[in-house]
C-alpha cells in the first residue's frame, strides 16, 4: 500500500444519487459515499446491475445526457464539486485531472485515426506544446506503457494492434497528462488472463510513479484481491459495505458480501478423476482446418490439430484455453456443428464423423451454448423450445410435456414456466432452461461451451452446482469448455489444456492445476488472478493445504 494516514483525499463521493431521466421511480444509484486518497486503489465491486459503472461515469461527468442524471450529493475532486462546474471547466478537468480507461479496448479507439494522433489529441486540447514537443511526449508515454517499436506503433491504426496493446494505448492516453485520478471501468475484462495480468501490473506501476488515485470498477474478485487497497461493494444501486482488502476478503460483515465472496471459484482443484467407467467420447487425431486452399496460396487456418482425449461415463472433462486456442472448435466438431477435417469422434463406440444422418447421435450428445440470451428462440415459449427435441424424436405431446415438466424441476424451475417466453427470465434462469433443454433429451454427453462465462459470479456458482447435481443424478458425462481456470478447478475431474490449436497438457485436474508440467499451463496458472486465495473459506489457499 502506498498511502499513509495523512495522504490527501483526491476524490470524495458524498451521498450521490443517480436517477433516470425523466425521473424514475427507482434511482440507479442511491446515496453512495466513498473517498479515494492519492496513491490508493479503491475497487468498486458488484454484479451486473449494481450501478458500479454508472458511479464511475458520474465521476467522469459522462452519464448519457438524455437518460441519466445525478440528482443528489456531491462529487469532490481535489476540493472542487464537479457537479457544479461549467461544461468548459469539466472539459478542462477531463484527462488533465481525471482520466478514464474503458472496458472494451477494441471499440474505445477511433478506428480511422492513428493511435499516435489520438494520444496527441489530448495534448493538443490541454497544452500549448509545439508539434515536435507533443510528438516527443507521446513517444515517451508509449515507451512508459511498454509498447515495443514505438515509432511504428505511433503510426499504427487501432486495428493493427492487439487487444492488450490497444488497452496500453488507452492507458497512455489517460495518463499522459498525469491526472490526479484514474477511473478504470473493467479495463481487463475483455482480455485474456495473461494480458490481464500485464495490464494490471502496468496500471499499478504507473500509479506508483505518479501517486495517482485509482478507482477500479470490476466484477472479478480475483482481480480485486490482487490490486485493491480498499473495496467498495455495491448491489443494485446500493453501497453494501466498504473496507480494506483484508476486511472484505476475510471477514465480510454483510450477508451479501459473504455470499459474493464465497461464490468466487478458487484455483484449488476439488475433484478426483473417475476410474473404471466405459468411454462415452473418444476423440482421435482430430483436425480442423478453416478455409480452402487456393491453387497457389494457402489461406487456411489450422484451428485444431492432433486432438486426442477421452471422456468416461459420469466424468466432467474441461477443455481450457485462451481465446484462439481452438477449444470451441473442438467442441463444435464433437457436436458436428462443424465438420472436422480429419480424425474420428467416437460416441458410445460409433465414429460420428463419416455419418450423414446425425439423428441418432444428436440424441446422445447435447450442447449448452455460452450466451443464454441468444440460445433460446425469443418467439417460442419455454415449453415449445424444450419439447421440440422430444417431438422431433417421435414422442407425443402429452408425454413430452410431462417429461419437460420433470426436467424443469430438476433445474429448480417450476413446470409452470413452460408457458412463458424467454424475455421474461434473467440470464441465470435462461441458462437453467437451456440446460433443461439439453438434459431432457437424456443424453450421454453434455457439451457446455463457456456455459457459465456470461453469468454473474453468484449465478455462476449456482449453475455450476446444478451441473454437478445433474451429473450425480443422471450419470451424464460433461465436456466443459472454459477459459477460466478457477471454474475448471471447481468442477472438472480431468482437464485438457489447449494452446494455438494443440493440446499442451492433459490429465487429472488435481495434477495439472496443482502441478503443471507444461510452461504454458504454468503461465496460465500464474496469470490467473488470486491463485493463492481460497474465497469460499475466506482465507489464503495455503491454509487449505495446511488443514
Amino acid at each position, binding site marked *: 500500500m502506498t498511502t499513509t494516514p495523512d495522504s490527501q483525499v483526491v476524490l470524495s463521493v458524498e451521498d450521490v444519487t443517480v436517477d433516470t431521466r425523466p425521473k424514475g421511480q427507482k434511482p440507479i444509484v442511491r446515496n453512495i459515499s466513498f473517498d479515494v486518497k492519492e496513491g490508493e486503489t479503491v475497487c468498486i465491486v458488484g454484479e451486473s446491475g449494481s450501478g458500479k459503472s454508472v458511479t464511475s461515469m458520474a465521476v467522469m461527468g459522462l452519464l448519457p445526457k438524455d437518460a441519466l442524471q445525478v440528482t443528489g450529493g456531491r462529487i469532490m475532486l481535489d476540493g472542487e464539486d464537479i457537479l457544479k462546474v461549467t461544461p468548459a471547466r469539466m472539459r478542462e478537468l477531463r484527462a488533465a485531472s481525471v482520466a478514464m480507461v474503458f472496458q472494451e479496448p477494441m471499440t474505445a479507439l477511433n478506428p480511422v485515426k492513428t493511435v499516435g494522433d489520438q494520444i496527441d489529441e489530448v495534448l493538443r486540447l490541454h497544452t500549448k506544446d509545439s508539434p515536435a514537443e507533443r510528438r516527443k511526449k507521446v513517444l515517451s508515454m508509449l515507451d512508459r506503457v511498454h509498447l515495443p517499436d514505438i515509432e511504428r506503433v505511433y503510426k499504427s491504426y487501432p486495428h493493427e494492434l492487439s487487444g492488450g496493446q490497444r488497452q496500453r494505448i488507452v492507458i497512455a492516453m489517460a495518463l499522459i497528462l498525469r491526472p490526479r485520478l484514474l477511473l478504470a471501468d473493467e479495463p481487463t475484462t475483455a482480455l485474456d488472463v495473461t494480458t490481464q495480468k500485464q495490464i494490471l501490473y502496468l496500471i499499478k506501476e504507473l500509479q506508483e510513479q505518479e501517486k495517482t488515485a485509482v478507482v477500479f470498477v470490476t466484477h472479478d474478485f480475483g482481480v480485486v484481491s490482487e490490486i485493491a487497497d480498499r473495496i467498495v461493494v455495491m*448491489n*443494485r444501486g*446500493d*453501497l*453494501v459495505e466498504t473496507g480494506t482488502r483484508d476486511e472484505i476478503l476475510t471477514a465480510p460483515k*454483510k*450477508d*451479501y*458480501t*459473504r*455470499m459474493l465472496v464465497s461464490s468466487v471459484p478458487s484455483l484449488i482443484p476439488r475433484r478426483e478423476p473417475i476410474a473404471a467407467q466405459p468411454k462415452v467420447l473418444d476423440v482421435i487425431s482430430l483436425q480442423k482446418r478453416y478455409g480452402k486452399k487456393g491453387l497457389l496460396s494457402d489461406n487456411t487456418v489450422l484451428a485444431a490439430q492432433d486432438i486426442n482425449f477421452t471422456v468416461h461415463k459420469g466424468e466432467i472433462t474441461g477443455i481450457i484455453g485462451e481465446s484462439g486456442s481452438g477449444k470451441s472448435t473442438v467442441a463444435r466438431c464433437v*457436436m458436428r*456443428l462443424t465438420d472436422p477435417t480429419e480424425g474420428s469422434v467416437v460416441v458410445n463406440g460409433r465414429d460420428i464423423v463419416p455419418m450423414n444422418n*446425425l*439423428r441418432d447421435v*444428436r*440424441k446422445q*450428445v*447435447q*450442447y449448452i*451454448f*455460452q*450466451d443464454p440470451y*441468444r*440460445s*433460446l*428462440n*425469443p*418467439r*417460442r415459449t419455454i415449453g415449445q*423450445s424444450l419439447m*421440440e*427435441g422430444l417431438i*422431433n*424424436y417421435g414422442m407425443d405431446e402429452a408425454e413430452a410435456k410431462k417429461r419437460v415438466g420433470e426436467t424443469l424441476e430438476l433445474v429448480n*424451475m*417450476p413446470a409452470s*414456466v413452460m*408457458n*412463458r*417466453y424467454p*424475455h*421474461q*427470465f*434473467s440470464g*441465470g*434462469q435462461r441458462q437453467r432452461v*437451456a440446460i433443461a*433443454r*439439453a438434459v431432457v*433429451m437424456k443424453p450421454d454427453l453434455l457439451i457446455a461451451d463457456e456455459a457459465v462465462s456470461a453469468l454473474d459470479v*453468484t*449465478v455462476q456458482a*449456482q449453475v455450476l452446482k446444478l451441473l454437478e447435481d445433474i451429473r450425480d443424478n443422471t450419470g451424464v458425462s460433461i465436456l466443459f469448455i472454459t477459459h477460466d481456470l478457477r471454474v475448471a478447478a471447481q468442477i472438472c475431474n480431468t482437464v485438457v489444456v489447449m494452446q494455438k490449436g494443440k493440446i499442451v497438457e492433459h490429465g487429472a485436474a488435481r495434477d495439472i492445476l496443482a502441478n503443471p508440467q507444461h510452461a504454458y499451463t504454468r503461465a496460465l496458472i500464474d496469470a490467473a488472478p488470486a491463485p493463492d486465495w481460497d474465497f469460499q473459506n475466506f482465507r489464503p489457499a495455503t491454509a487449505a493445504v495446511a488443514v
Partner: protein
Amino acid sequence: MTTDSGNTMKAEEALDLPDMEEAQNASGFGQLIRGILSTWPARISAVVLLLIILMAVFAPYLGTVDPVRLDPSQRLQGSTAAHWLGTDSFGRDLYSRVVYGARISLAVGAGTVVVALLAGVFFGVLTGYFRWADIVIMRFMDGLMAIPGILLAIALVAISGATLTTVLIAISIPEVPRVARMVRSVIMGVRNEPYVEAASVLGTSTIKMITRHMLPNTIAPLIVQGTYIFASAIMTESILSFLGAGVPPETPSWGNMMADGRLYFLVKPELILYPGVMVSLTVLSVNMLGDVLRDRLDPRMAKRI
C-alpha cells in the same frame, strides 16, 4: 442500506414475473398499432390513407360519373355544378377520374407488394439457406439490380403490351432482388445464432428450421420493406403512365391523367396538379407510416435505407 442483503439473490431468482397474458400482449398486434399511432404525423398519415382507401372502395357512390365517358363539347371546362373539378381535354370529368384513379394506384401498390414479397422471400430463403443456390441466383439478382428499374419496367410494358397485369409485374420485378437480399441476409444472420444451432442439435428438420426459427425473423423487416414497396410502386406506376408506358391510356389512373394533361399544362395546370397531389399524398402518407413502422419494428434497417 439494506441489512439482509442475503435475500437479494433469491429475489432475483424468484419467478415474480408479470402474468403470461400481459406479456404476450406486450408483443402483440394491438400494441404495435397503438405504438404506430402515438405521434401526430403518423395519425394524420393513417387518416389520409384510410380516406384514400375508402375513396377507392366507394368510388361509384361518391357523386361520380363514368370516368371514361368522352364529351368533346365539354373540353377543358372549369369547375361547374356538373363537373366539380372541371373536365380534361377529352371532356371527361376530372373529379370522377381522380376518385377512380385511387383504385388503380392502390391495386398496383398492393399487387406489387404481394408479388415482390412472395418472390423475394422464395429466392431469399433459397439463397440464404442453400449454398448451391446462392451463387447462381445472386449473380442473376446482381444483374437485375444493375438495370435501372424504371427502364426495365418501361421496356417490359412496351414489349408485353400495356395491361394492368404487365404493369404490375414490370414494377414488381425490379423490387424482387432487394427483398431477396434482405431475406437472405436475415437468414444467413440467424443461421449461426445459438438458438438455431440448438434446434439443429435437437434434430429439427430443415423445413421446420426455416419456418419456425428463421422466417419469423424476416416478418418485421418484410412489413417495413413492404410499406416502402407499396409507396414506390404507386410512384412508379404514375411515372410509367406519365411516360406513356403504363396501364392502357383510357384507364382512369393518376399517371394517365397527368400524361394527358401534359400538352395543356400551361393552359390548365390543374390537369396535372390534381392527380399529382393525390399521388404525392398517398405516397407521402404510406412513407410516413413506413418510417414509424421501421422505428418500431426494425431500427437497424434505417441504415439500409
